[in-house]
């Protein structure tokens, strides 16, 4: 399994797609998490993401190891953005390619679920009413 893991200021779906494209794989599943303009109906102006980078990379690698154990996946990409992010910006991209689509869906959803539970990245939301959370 080929793996691309990165945490940086700006990420795109396109770079994930480029990494996973392979004529040996028939099914590609991509999850993109973008900044919403509201949280529980409250207008959001922007978010700030910070991370404990070496541990975050290490936890992402552990998730990749689990994927490799569980499924016959050929390519896996995990990208996370940090810094100030505005509505519409891409915060996270998970991309999976495999010969068959069912496991690509399972693996992609697993990765984003576990990433949100274990990877030390934190977001702070800034609301239009000038409060922050």
């Amino acid at each position, binding site marked *: 399994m080929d793996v691309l893991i990165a945490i940086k200021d700006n990420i795109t779906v396109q770079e994930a797609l480029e990494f996973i494209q392979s004529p040996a794989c028939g099914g590609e599943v991509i999850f993109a998490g973008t900044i919403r303009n509201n949280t529980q109906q409250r207008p959001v102006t922007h978010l700030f993401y910070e991370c404990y980078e070496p*541990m975050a990379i290490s936890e992402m690698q552990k998730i990749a190891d689990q994927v490799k154990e569980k499924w016959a996946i050929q390519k896996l990409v995990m990208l996370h953005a940090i810094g100030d992010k505005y509505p519409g910006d891409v915060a996270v991209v998970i991309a999976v390619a495999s010969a068959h689509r069912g496991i690509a869906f399972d693996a992609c959803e697993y990765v984003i679920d576990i990433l949100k539970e274990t990877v*030390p990245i*934190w977001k702070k939301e800034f609301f239009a009413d000038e409060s922050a959370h």
Partner: protein
Amino acid sequence: MGILLFGVVRETVGSSVLEYPAAINDVASLKRWLYEEYPSLKQLSSLLIAVNRTYATDNQAFSNTDEVAIIPPVSGG
């Protein structure tokens, strides 16, 4: 080396590094010490400690040569 702080813990303490507290050398005592010094941390839904970039259990020991970090509830994605 100090103890690394992130997110709401960094904001509560007012610094991204906390000086290594004397006589603290396991995860459980570090947590007890943090809750005493910064009682508002008790309101968090979880507070984990990482030792050398790995989540640690309560009984794990460490020394000031280890990289210790306080991990408030993560919220990536």
